[in-house]
């Protein structure tokens, strides 16, 4: 694999990260594995004792698990849309962060659906989804969508990695034999020949073109699990775009956090520059404004028309004795804060932007909770139930343990992957500092001139 000087430099800079796992990485790995083990114990309890160990009951039939499902799967869709757009666009500054976005896509599309499985009463019967599928159910659409999306994101990430695997294979890294062999297998014999380059570029472009609409479709289908029902707060025509926007928005926030973290950890300031934070901050600001607009229309129309159950739900969401403070947090920290931080020049810096993004991601999780639980607590007929756990949802420790296990799995994936491949893609890299200015004079290689080469 031939690399230009800039790419070579980027590789040499990151060489040590993939050569050595490191004490710190081992420490965190053990910690994450412990978290996952606690989660597995909670899962064992749930299987052995039944779903009674969760806080879910006949009225609030879905709880933290579904909240986590929407949250993670949203990150996944966001990663695909962001990576797809950055890949297709000619902006050179975007290239170094594509891999982080793709990591996010792949790991979330694995963790998200696991939460659906946790929520299902009989996961010994999951094969029923395939032997008795019922096409008119939005859940069947979602099964098909998530599987398609999973295959798509594996391909999308892998195609982007092939060139890099070839680089690692040829670099005479100081690594164990099995890892050397693995790189060799994964590189699929890529040598940088003209036809190989051409095929790879075509497939990558194709995948990027496929992944963007696919992510929009699957995010909409996810929203329709709720939108297709006759429940207040769910039965809304804007739910599709609302979920798409919410997904990309929270994903953008997490990408900023991941960027900041790896910039600190691997000292990647040269690749994840201040400009990246500013630019992604702008994207976040626009998405925040959009999400705020959707949220406002959703609440405002429900409140103004004041249909019986919608009003009841709005009252719950805004009354301080129920979800009022959470609603305030979700909207102040989830919408207003990022806008303010990015809009004010004094705070438009990597640190504040990252903090705002981090808080926003948490607020977006809370927002998903506010979409799911209060609606389920608003039944059309009065509950008239004396069992408090049936009236109001309160998550139990197994649910929290499994939630933490999910987050730990997410972080574990990032830890392991960042030791297996370089966080900043090497072969697809262009000099962010020089190429950007030269861009107008010397257009990037296009399909025609690469095939000629």
């Amino acid at each position, binding site marked *: 694999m031939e690399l230009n000087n800039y790419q070579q430099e980027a590789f040499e800079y990151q060489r040590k990260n993939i050569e050595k796992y490191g004490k710190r990485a081992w420490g965190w790995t053990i910690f994450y594995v412990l978290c996952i083990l606690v989660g597995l114990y909670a899962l064992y309890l749930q299987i052995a*004792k*039944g*779903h*009674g160990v969760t806080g*879910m*009951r*006949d*009225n609030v*039939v*879905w709880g933290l698990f579904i909240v986590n499902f929407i949250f993670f799967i949203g990150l996944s869709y966001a990663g695909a849309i962001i990576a797809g757009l950055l890949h297709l666009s000619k902006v050179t500054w975007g290239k170094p962060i594509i891999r982080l976005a793709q990591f996010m896509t792949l790991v979330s599309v694995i963790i998200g659906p696991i939460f*659906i499985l946790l*929520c*299902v*009463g*009989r*996961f010994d*019967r*999951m094969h*029923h*989804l395939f032997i*008795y*599928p*019922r096409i*008119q*159910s*939005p*859940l*069947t659409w979602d*099964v098909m969508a998530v599987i398609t999306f999973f295959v798509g994101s594996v391909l999308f990430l892998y195609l982007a990695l092939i060139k890099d695997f070839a680089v690692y294979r040829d670099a005479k890294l100081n690594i164990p034999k099995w890892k050397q062999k693995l790189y060799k297998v994964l590189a699929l014999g890529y040598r940088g020949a003209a036809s190989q380059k051409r095929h790879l570029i075509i497939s990558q472009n194709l995948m990027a073109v496929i992944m963007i609409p696919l992510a929009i479709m699957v995010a909409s289908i996810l929203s329709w*699990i*709720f939108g*297709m*029902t*006759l*429940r207040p707060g769910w039965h809304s025509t804007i739910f599709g775009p609302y979920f798409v926007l919410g997904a990309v928005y929270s994903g953008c926030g997490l990408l900023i956090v991941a960027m900041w973290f790896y910039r600190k950890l691997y000292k990647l300031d040269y690749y994840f520059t201040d400009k990246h934070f500013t630019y992604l901050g702008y994207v976040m600001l626009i998405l925040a404004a959009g999400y705020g607009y959707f949220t406002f229309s959703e609440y405002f129309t429900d409140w103004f028309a004041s249909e019986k159950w919608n009003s009841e739900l709005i009252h719950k969401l805004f009354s301080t004795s129920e979800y009022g403070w959470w609603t305030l947090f979700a909207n102040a920290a989830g919408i207003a804060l990022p806008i303010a931080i990015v809009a004010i020049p004094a705070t438009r810096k990597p640190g504040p932007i990252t903090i705002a993004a981090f808080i926003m991601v948490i607020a977006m999780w809370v927002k998903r909770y506010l979409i799911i639980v209060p609606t*389920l607590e608003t*039944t*059309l*007929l*009065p*509950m*008239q*139930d*004396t*069992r408090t756990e049936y009236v109001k949802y309160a998550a139990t420790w197994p649910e929290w343990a499994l939630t933490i296990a999910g987050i730990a799995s997410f972080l574990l994936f990032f830890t392991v992957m960042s030791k297996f491949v370089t966080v900043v893609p090497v072969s697809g890299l262009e000099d962010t500092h020089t190429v950007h200015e030269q861009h107008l004079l010397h257009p990037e290689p296009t399909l025609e001139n690469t095939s000629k080469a």
Partner: protein
Amino acid sequence: MKQEEVNDKGRRDFLKTAALATVAATACGSLACSCNSKKAPVSDKVKLLSPTGEIVEIDSAYLNHEEHMAIVSKLEAREGIAGKKFVMVVDLAKCKNARSCVSACQKWHYRPKETEWLTVKLLQDSDKAAPYWFPKQCFHCDNPPCVKVCPVDATYKRQDGIVLIDSDRCIGCKFCMAACPYSTRVFNWDEPELSLDIKNLAYSPETGIPAKVGTVEKCDFCPDRAREGLLPPCVEACPNGVFYFGDENEDTVSNGLETVSFTQLIKDRSGYRFMEDLGTKPRVYYLPPKDREFPVEKGYQDADSAIKERFKDFKDILEAKE
């Protein structure tokens, strides 16, 4: 005094429908009344209230003690009973929250006390409106939101109008529970506590027995009993004849005490379907609580304290009139 008035009105209503009932009864072939038991009296009398408001004593031997019916194949349980279109009419004017329907249902289906496939709510349509008792079971909708969302066809609509659940197929995703606007469905959160002989019974979607952990269940209109020409236990157990069950195709419904024309009953008493605007097309009709046989407070005052607790929001209205 008030009670008498109410009863008197009830009697007039009954006389009006009596003529109809005799005609309808001859037409009703399959829906036998369950009072034809040939058992010897055991001198254990049970007091029941007839639809006319009179208290009658019946020997408990004459009450139903049917064993569960022979089970049909899964395919038959999916197709339903040919030529039938089951329908239920609930007369809100007669309900006094006696809850005999609830316990009869629980007993028949071996469900614990907390699991109510059939429940009695106290509804008040607006602040100034009079509250009324509202027995609610599965509405077996003709446009069922639950069936639409099931990803594995575990819950399905049959040709006889009944919506059933196959607990052997249900994956427990609870989507149907979220989709049902009437909160009809219940979930087996833990392993159901059943005696060994019940646990060993062959399962059929028509009986719903034995219940299975991690699956959804609900009122099933007792199709196993309908196959034998019997009324559901809730209908039979009601001391006031609140529930009428029957066949829309035959245009006949019976509450076990009288058999009447379904269309005539709906016409005469301004029958309606609950939350018609949702478009779910329920198969359960309600008769408005006009000319009630019991004052609403009675159902509250006679209830035990645990049940009273459910209606604490109505405490002021219900206790003031004592």
